[in-house]
């Protein structure tokens, strides 16, 4: 038991995590590209034309994975942040910091593709739909996290402050989602309901899953690349970094 904890902390140290991340990155890239090619093939050549939405529905193959990832990544970011706060491991805060920009990018892509999908289907770039609105708020939460970390000079303090904010956000995200949903149904502004879409064909589901896996692998690869940079930036005055870069 004791041994395994020590082992765990070993990988929790930047010194051993840096080369480990370096070895893992190419594998995640390979997986991302493989899943991406398969997913794109299904998206464009296997999945049939939708009876109602024509070819326009194909946006779903990037829109849904981006939305999923934006939410997953927030949870993972908060998990690392909370771990850092609880156990005071150095890598945790760096991971949270490395994930945030990718999460924000996914939220942005989700909003962008959502707008491009909404225009031909609903006739508007933006509707105050519950999902769209909470995605927008999620995007703001990411920006807030990044801005707070950037504004604090001492990295250890920045990690802790960011962790508290991320955890407060985790508590708030469900509250925000349900409040926005209720607000939206009360207003009855948009008559379009995404749930009414025709039951999804198997091929579509496969396409979406493969694309989601591609986005997963991509996110991990990018976050690991960024965490390597962050490790070097923060630990640049330690002995091991000088040897690692040689």
């Amino acid at each position, binding site marked *: 038991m004791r041994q395994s904890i020590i082992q765990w902390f070993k990988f929790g140290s930047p010194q051993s995590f840096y080369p480990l991340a370096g070895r893992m990155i190419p594998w995640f890239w390979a997986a991302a590209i493989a899943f991406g090619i398969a997913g794109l093939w299904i998206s464009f050549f296997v999945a049939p034309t939708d009876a109602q939405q024509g070819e326009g529905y194909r946006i779903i193959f990037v829109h849904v994975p981006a939305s999923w990832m934006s939410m997953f990544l927030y949870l993972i970011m908060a998990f690392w942040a909370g771990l850092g706060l609880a156990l005071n491991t150095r890598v945790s805060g760096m991971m949270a910091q490395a994930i945030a920009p990718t999460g924000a990018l996914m939220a942005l892509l989700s909003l962008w593709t959502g707008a491009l999908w909404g225009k031909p289907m609903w006739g508007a770039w933006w509707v105050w739909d519950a999902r769209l609105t909470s995605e927008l708020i999620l995007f703001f939460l990411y920006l807030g996290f990044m801005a707070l970390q950037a504004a604090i000079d001492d990295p250890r303090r920045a990690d802790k402050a960011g962790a508290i904010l991320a955890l407060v956000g985790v508590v708030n995200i469900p509250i925000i989602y349900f409040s926005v949903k209720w607000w939206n149904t009360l207003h009855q502004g948009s008559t379009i309901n995404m749930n009414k879409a025709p039951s999804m064909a198997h091929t579509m589901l496969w396409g979406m899953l493969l694309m989601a896996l591609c986005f997963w692998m991509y996110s991990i690869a990018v976050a690991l690349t960024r965490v390597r940079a962050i490790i070097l930036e923060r630990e*640049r005055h330690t002995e091991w970094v000088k040897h690692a870069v040689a």
Partner: protein
Amino acid sequence: MQWHSIDEFFAMGGYAFYVWGSFGACALLMFAEPFLAKRRLSEVRQSLIRERLADELELQQKNS
């Protein structure tokens, strides 16, 4: 396969702007982001290598 020609594929049944706008934005940003992350990493590395060089030069000058 539902496409009969390349043109038809790119036309996307009249939704070309929306479909390619979405996929294009994803491709662009998901190409740019790793590129930026990579550059950040190599910038730190460069500066670390420069620092090492400076250390070595300082040492040489001291010895000579």
